[in-house]
């Protein structure tokens, strides 16, 4: 075996070598964590597994097969071919240069919650800060093409939870995912994005600012190494990590058949709490959420609904007075209040507002601008206004 010969030529400290073996084990293509750990157990250590002869590997495969863990020919071949010392070293160098870190299931720092799910990834790449296992985490997921209501709710919920020190996890996709991350960042909270592509690829590309900012206040996590493209089947796989890392999953907007519901199913298997934000029964984008509530998910109408499950009750009470609409007291005069009351989370046209409030257009617009400047409402589309949460 040429590769083993090459390996013997190097002198490295034991720690460095250990890293190398772990990285090798974590990057064998197509091999899942259960098989890798079974192999390592069989050889009594990762170093022995690395240096095992082909014959020894075949014996190991046979013995494992008797216990129900079957290695295929292809997998054995991949194990052998992966033992290229130079290539592994090059890859490790590359990761170091690009600030990409990784953790394997053999390490203590591997996220505790994730370790206990069915089919955890053997190796996780991450950028930014290490995922803290001791903190509570909530994943916020939902539709990519979300409505303004979904967008505002995602930001509000994520912000309120993040302010209480809860980690916000999502998938860095368009729509709800992005807004959850943004909400957490605005609140100076911690947020992690789980990618369905290589750790160094920002997908979708327009989220590049988010991708960079999150590394300062949290991080990016992926089980895929550098350069791996976002392929459709990666995303359901990445959903198991999203749910696996979190204590609960909040769905904000989802159609009846939505990818977010895959995350919910996985979360249920993993024993996570499921939260859903209700919507109007006529809104297609809320059909999935409403169905979840029907099936027993916890309905979320305020951040307290989630907080009370995660932190102790005294803390929840304290936050009550700080959040929500109470900050408005004394800020608005009665006319502005009337206009504000007429504006909800669905964009409403100026004309409709005039009918609702009875103000003339000129006066109405004066109040609208005043409210907009006070940062209470915004104009997501021309001539239409929504409340800012």
């Amino acid at each position, binding site marked *: 075996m040429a590769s083993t010969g090459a390996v013997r030529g190097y002198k490295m400290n034991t720690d460095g070598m250990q890293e190398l073996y772990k990285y090798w084990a974590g990057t064998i293509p197509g091999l899942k964590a259960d098989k890798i750990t079974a192999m390592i157990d069989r050889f009594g250590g990762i170093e022995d597994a690395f240096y095992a002869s082909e014959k020894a590997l075949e014996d190991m495969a046979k013995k494992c097969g008797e216990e129900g863990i079957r290695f295929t020919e292809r997998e054995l071949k991949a194990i052998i071919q992966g033992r290229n010392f130079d290539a592994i070293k090059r890859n490790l160098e590359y990761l170091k240069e690009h600030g990409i870190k990784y953790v394997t299931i053999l390490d203590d720092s591997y996220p505790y919650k994730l370790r206990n799910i069915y089919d955890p990834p053997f190796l996780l790449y991450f950028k930014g800060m290490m995922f803290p296992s001791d903190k509570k985490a909530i994943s916020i997921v939902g539709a*990519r*093409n*979300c*409505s*303004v209501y979904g*967008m505002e709710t995602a930001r509000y919920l994520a912000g309120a939870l993040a302010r209480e020190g809860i980690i916000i996890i999502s998938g860095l996709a*368009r*729509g709800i995912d992005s*807004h959850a991350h*943004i909400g957490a*960042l605005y609140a100076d909270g911690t947020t992690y994005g789980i990618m369905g592509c290589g750790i160094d690829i920002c997908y*979708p590309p*327009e989220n590049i*600012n*988010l991708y960079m*900012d999150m590394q300062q206040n949290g991080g990016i996590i992926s089980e895929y190494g550098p350069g791996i493209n976002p392929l459709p089947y990666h995303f359901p796989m990445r959903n198991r990590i999203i749910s696996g890392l979190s204590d609960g999953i909040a769905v904000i907007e989802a159609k009846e058949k939505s990818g977010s519901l895959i995350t919910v199913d996985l979360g249920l298997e993993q024993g996570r709490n499921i939260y859903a934000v209700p919507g109007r029964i*006529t*809104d*297609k*984008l809320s059909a999935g959420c409403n169905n979840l509530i029907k099936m027993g998910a916890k309905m979320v109408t305020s951040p307290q609904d989630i907080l009370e499950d995660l932190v102790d009750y005294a803390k929840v009470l304290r936050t009550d007075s700080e959040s929500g609409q109470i900050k408005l007291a004394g800020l608005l005069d009665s006319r502005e209040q009337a206009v504000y009351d007429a504006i909800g989370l669905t*964009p409403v*046209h*100026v*004309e*409709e507002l*005039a009918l609702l409030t009875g103000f003339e*257009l*000129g*006066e109405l*617009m*004066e109040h*609208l*601008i*005043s409210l*907009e*400047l006070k*940062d209470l409402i*915004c*104009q*997501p*589309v*021309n*001539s*239409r206004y929504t409340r800012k949460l």
Partner: protein
Amino acid sequence: MFSRAYSAVIHGIDGLIVSVEADVSDGLPLFEMVGLLNSEVKEARERVRIALKNSGYMFPPKRITVNLSPADIRKEGTAFDLPVAVAILTAFGHVLEDNLKDTLIIGELSLNGTIKKVNGVLPLVYAARQRGFLRCIVPKENADEGAVVSGIKVYGAGTLKEAVRMLNGFDDYKPNSVDISMLFQGGHSEDGLSDENVDFSEVAGQAAVKRAIEIAVSGMHNILMIGPPGSGKTMLAKRIPTIMPELSFDESMEISKIYSIAGLLGNRALITGRPFRSPHHSITSTALVGGGATPKPGEISLAHLGVLFLDELPEFNKNTLEVLRQPLEEKAVTISRLNATYRYPAGFMMVASMNPCSCGYYPDRNRCNCSLNMIKRYLGKISKPLLDRFDICIEAPQIDYKELQIKKMEETSADIRKRVQAARRIQMDRYAGQGIWFNSQLTPKSIHKYCRLDAREKNLLEQAFEKMKLSARAYHRIIKVARTIADLDSSERITVRHISEAICYRSIDGKYWGGEGL
């Protein structure tokens, strides 16, 4: 035997007098025409020769030379047939020479000697009057058009023979006359012009858009309407000319000249309604601004003093729209050719409509499934500089069935027009002698002079500027629109309310469109 007749050629939108000289001498039989002629003018030779023969005149085998001068200006069009024929007949002694020097002659000849109508009679006759001619002979079909010009006698001739008889004795013929006040009274609904049979009262609801249109018309601000399909954007746009002030005679003449050159006058003597041009989005940039080998006015000049409506704005070719930028600032378009530079007026009000996304229903997520990227791509078809030219931007909401059923008394166009006229009068008085007619024409410097703001208003603008990240251009736009709103209010001062309303009409902001990014 030498003779000289006078005709004219269109240059830009003005007429240029051309003298048509003919010389008949002995020598080898030849008929030659010189003087920088386009091919259609060169072909006049054959038409004239045969028309003379068929009208019963001898065409003797002599050496005939025709010169059109000034020789350094390109002659184009078919209006030279008749003057060439007249000049030759004069050289042969068939026409009295005395009458020629005070008469402008235009007309195309048919082979049998009848005179056919030509384009551009109005500016040509106009030029003749300026130059002190006493009378014009024009094709019979163009006689009304020419007669609109006062201070000059216009005779309509049907055949070459008739024209010759006229020139030999004008006393037997009566000059054509039209009653201009009658022209202005009659309703009309022709192609390319405003349809006077429509009225704003026919549009149900849409109070906010109507208000925005009223402001736009008062200050001649360009307006962009956004809305789902079927919300009535086109219907509203078509009614904009009905609230514009009625045309004055001078304005009417200006428009009619352009239409005369473009050959769009039809049977009318004068254009008496505001133009409403709605070119299809497949239009080329040449058709839009004018041009061609022999320049012709484009849609923007045809919309002069009226409305240029660009329906489905993002569907237009991007390059086509970009050529609008300069004429929008200059209120005219200059087309340069090697031989000459042509200038066409283009003082139009731009009205455009578009959907908020490619399916048209954003932000109604029950119907719209466009991703933010798709929406951004759709909006990206319109360049930021062009978008900056729209002072007012408003969304036309979907009308629900209930609103269509309610028989509410909607305001008529006449009522709105009264307010518009009042606001226009205020502007006219304020800017008298400044070369400015509308608030939309204010430059940053003149804004300073005419739009004084008090501390409260300044404070509001400053806050908005910071908060909404406005550009300098947007800032000026808001003040201009606020000025118009104040004028509609007959208020000398611009108040917080006026500014607030103007801010509400600000154009699409990349940041807010489809939710803000990080």
